[in-house]
């Protein structure tokens, strides 16, 4: 598991945004393509790939992709 891998998985959920736009510092909710469907997809991605609980409320607290990755790392570490 690495942040590079997570960023590429995150980027795969987008069809129109250029993959180079995705970095740890990307404020994903400010992307033009971001929608409620992407919120669902990211939650399901984390469930499928990392098998940890991650909710809409968690996503709400995150601003950057790194924020999400930190939550995943923390929960995987404690699991």
């Amino acid at each position, binding site marked *: 598991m690495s942040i590079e891998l997570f960023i590429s998985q995150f980027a795969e959920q987008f069809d129109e945004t250029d993959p180079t736009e995705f970095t740890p510092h990307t404020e994903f909710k400010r992307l033009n393509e971001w929608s*409620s*469907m992407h*919120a*669902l*997809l990211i*939650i*399901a*991605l984390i*469930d*499928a790939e990392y098998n940890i609980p991650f*909710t*809409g*409320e968690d*996503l*709400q607290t995150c601003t950057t992709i790194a924020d999400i990755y930190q939550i995943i790392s923390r929960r995987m570490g404690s699991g």
Partner: protein
Amino acid sequence: MFQQNLQNKTILVTGASSGIGRECAIVLSGMGAELVISGKNEERLQQTLQSLSLGNHRLLAANLTQPDAVAELVNKLPPLNGLLHCAGIWKPQPIKFLQPQTARLIMEVNYMAAVMLVSQLLQQKKMLSGASVVFVSSIAAHQPYKGGAAYAASKAALEAFAKTLALETAHAGMRSNCIAPAMVQSPILIQAQTTVTEAAMQHHLNQYPLRPGVPNDVAQAAAFLLSDASSWITGATLHLNGGIALL
């Protein structure tokens, strides 16, 4: 309030350990029905049993996804005037990430359990002439929402099953109907709130022309469909949604 009468009716309520199922059991017992309550968790079923109005009620815990457990449960049942099938689960997953095991689990609990239970009830001749069967479906069977593919499909399957049952048992005076509620204050709503966000859920709840539902709304509708007041209604779905389907 108009009080519906279920005196002298023996009714099996599944999914009675929490949420809508528990509230329905409490309301039906208050209308004079004699209940057999079922669910997976015996401890929580005990809590439901203690909340019921006085009467000769029984508790039979069972996992309805297991064929042997279903046959054993049905074997222990007295002859029934009614079945209220509330057992169900909810889990959102967008189609892109819909895992086969999740889709199968939702179908097993929400659809296959009903199939096995009703089949056994008929085989073991536990449904009395004139009996009424009520399934708790969902607005999801009629109005899709993002992430709801497996749940909506399971409830649509349940409704198709209920209609077929209505046809196959009408000769015995039996009836089979569904209730399709929209969002009801229940453990599933709490689960939905954490999956999306409380703000998104509040936005949804604010859209109801009347109001979102409470478990008692479902219980009152179930009581009507289980009572003789609805004796000409079969193969129907009663939509309970505070008017949200009008939007």
